């Protein structure tokens, strides 16, 4: 009996016809893996394209070709003034025409997320003296660009895929890092015409429930999050380029000495020769490593600095220093909110009192406080 036949009879509870091959529901207990698995490699993702260098076809062309325009300094100044006049940032909080309806928070609410930059790693200490490696995330100047209601979003390409079998939710488009409109194309700048904001370098979509909708032009700051909550951080991992099999897959390679001829970091055998008589798709080989989008789930926020809009998160996030990440409330069920967070987002108090500048988690040792005595 072939390996696959054995697998089918042992692991599948339903009676399967001989033609059907089920690879998804395989039991991976160590005993059985050792016995029946020649190649302990995940093959289901082998044909999916993991990264592209170009944006999706429905995106508008973003960056302008930099032209060497010989403008005099006076004219340059005039152009800048025109831009400033055109893009005076509106703030809906201070008596503008946009109205924020304060809707109720319930545990099933999905709030918006935030675009931030990973600015590095800092060591902090807990109250018992244990050292903790924290990632510093700088929340950039986020503004809500537009809201796409659930019915409309479910008709879009991505929305149709995401909400194929479930109830559709709305989509908030958030932009960060305002930049000079000169560097962008007219089509890209037109995305921001409705809101009247300076075009942003980065855009992101966040899935929200209709009760967490924010009107366009709302700023999002570090106060959107609460110290002690768990967040998921979504970013692009470090790009290692074309890497060999030892670094990419953790192969052991060959002996460094003892007569090994030209076999120190190679993969070795890539198939049996008997079973299937070919190289299986998904065989681990050298190739491009990194630059993939990944989530880091359930990271705890230990400190928020409201003055500089900076969040300190316990642990590390995907991506190199100075790369852009997206932060949102965690979807891990045990670490979700039990009490209402700033909903739909944080607004500074109306009586003009400034918030506390540096908020620390109760477990962390504050640097200005006396040394820990155990």
């Amino acid at each position, binding site marked *: 009996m072939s390996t696959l036949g054995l697998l089918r009879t042992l692991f599948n509870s339903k009676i399967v016809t001989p033609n059907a091959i089920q690879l998804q529901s395989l039991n991976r207990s160590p005993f059985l893996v050792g016995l029946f698995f020649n190649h302990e490699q995940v093959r289901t993702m082998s044909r999916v394209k993991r990264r592209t260098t170009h944006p999706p076809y429905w995106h508008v062309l973003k960056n302008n070709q930099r032209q060497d325009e010989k403008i005099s300094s006076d004219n340059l100044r005039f152009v800048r003034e025109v831009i400033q006049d055109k893009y005076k940032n509106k703030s809906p909080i201070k008596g503008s025409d946009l109205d924020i309806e304060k809707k109720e928070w319930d545990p099933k609410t999905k709030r918006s997320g935030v675009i931030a930059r990973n600015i590095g790693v*800092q060591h902090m200490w807990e109250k018992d*003296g244990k*050292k903790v490696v924290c990632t510093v995330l*700088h929340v950039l100047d986020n503004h809500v660009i537009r809201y796409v209601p659930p019915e409309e979003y479910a008709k879009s390409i991505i929305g149709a895929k995401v909400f194929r079998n479930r109830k559709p939710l709305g989509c908030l488009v958030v932009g960060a890092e305002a930049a000079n409109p000169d560097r962008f194309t007219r089509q890209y700048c037109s995305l921001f015409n409705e809101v009247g904001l300076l075009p942003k370098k980065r855009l992101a979509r966040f899935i929200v429930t209709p009760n967490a909708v924010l009107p366009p032009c709302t700023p999002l700051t570090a106060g959107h999050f609460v110290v002690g909550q768990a967040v998921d951080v979504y970013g692009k991992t470090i790009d290692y380029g074309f890497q060999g099999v030892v670094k990419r897959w953790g192969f052991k390679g060959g002996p460094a000495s003892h007569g090994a001829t030209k076999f120190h970091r190679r993969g070795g055998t890539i198939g049996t020769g008997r079973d299937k008589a070919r190289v299986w798709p998904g065989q681990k080989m050298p190739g491009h490593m990194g630059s993939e989008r990944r989530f880091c789930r359930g990271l705890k926020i230990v400190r928020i600095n409201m003055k500089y809009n900076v969040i300190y998160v316990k642990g590390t996030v995907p991506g190199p220093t*100075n790369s852009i990440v997206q932060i949102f409330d965690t979807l891990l069920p045990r670490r979700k909110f039990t009490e209402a967070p700033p909903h739909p987002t944080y607004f500074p108090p109306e009586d003009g009192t400034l918030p506390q500048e540096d908020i620390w988690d109760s477990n962390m*040792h504050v*640097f*200005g406080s006396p*040394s820990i*005595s155990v």
Partner: protein
Amino acid sequence: MLRRAVLQTFRQGLAQSFFKRNAVSLSETTVTHQPIETSDEADEKSVSKQKPGDESGNTVVVAPPEFRFMYPEFLPDPAMERRNRLKEKLERIDMLQRRSVVEIPEFYTGSVMAVTVADANSPNKFARFVGICIQRGGSGLRAWFILRNVVDKQGVEILYEMYCPLIQKIEVLRLERRLDESLLYLRDALPEYSTFPLDMEPERRLNNSVVPINPLKVKLRPRPWLERWERQNLQGVEDLNLPQRFYDKAEKVAKPWEKYDLMLQYRKTIPAEEQEKIFADVHSQLQQQEFKRKIRRRRGTD
């Protein structure tokens, strides 16, 4: 006990030549204000130099150039891919906050120090260790130093993180420098060179302005050693008395062109303009903290 060699005191300016490795491109470029090596300035070590004035006519306070050596952990890691001005600024704020609680004195490799740490497992909850600083490194809150001592004929080295809140007190018992930046060769030296009494008293310096350089030459044990000391151009070690083949191999393996490699030095250091900015920022706060501590000491509350 070590036999004390004659301590020669050098002018602060000459000390720069011992830090050639770290600052060769900087010592030539920092000519923005008068150097402090003149004889009348020798008394005021930490005086802040005032720049002759910028465009607005106000004098700009600039930290003295020794700050680069006294507080090297305020300078960030020079690797450009990982630098971010905002994060460095926030880290400096945290460092100064911690320094306001605990006095982290000026020390160099070769200084004898005593560190008191909170320890749950020791009888009176505090553990005090005395040793010679053999290496220091790290930047920002990760700054560390290693103390070495020989206790009951057993060599002991402890790595302390300077900003760890478990540290209660850092005292410098003997402030001096050695001829090398890293004293790791003490591991292969005779134990008498690493032994310091655990109840050592802090020593008072005669001349407060200049940090003395101890020109001690250490005797190493016979081979085998932990590293190939003959390849490292050590100044503080006595003649190694090795067969010629070791020195020949060392010459073969040496990279004498590195001292002429300006880009290499540039990549290893923070530019002088940035250093000035960083230390100017930090200088005023440190001075204030020092002042407060002096007042407390005079009142006797310390």
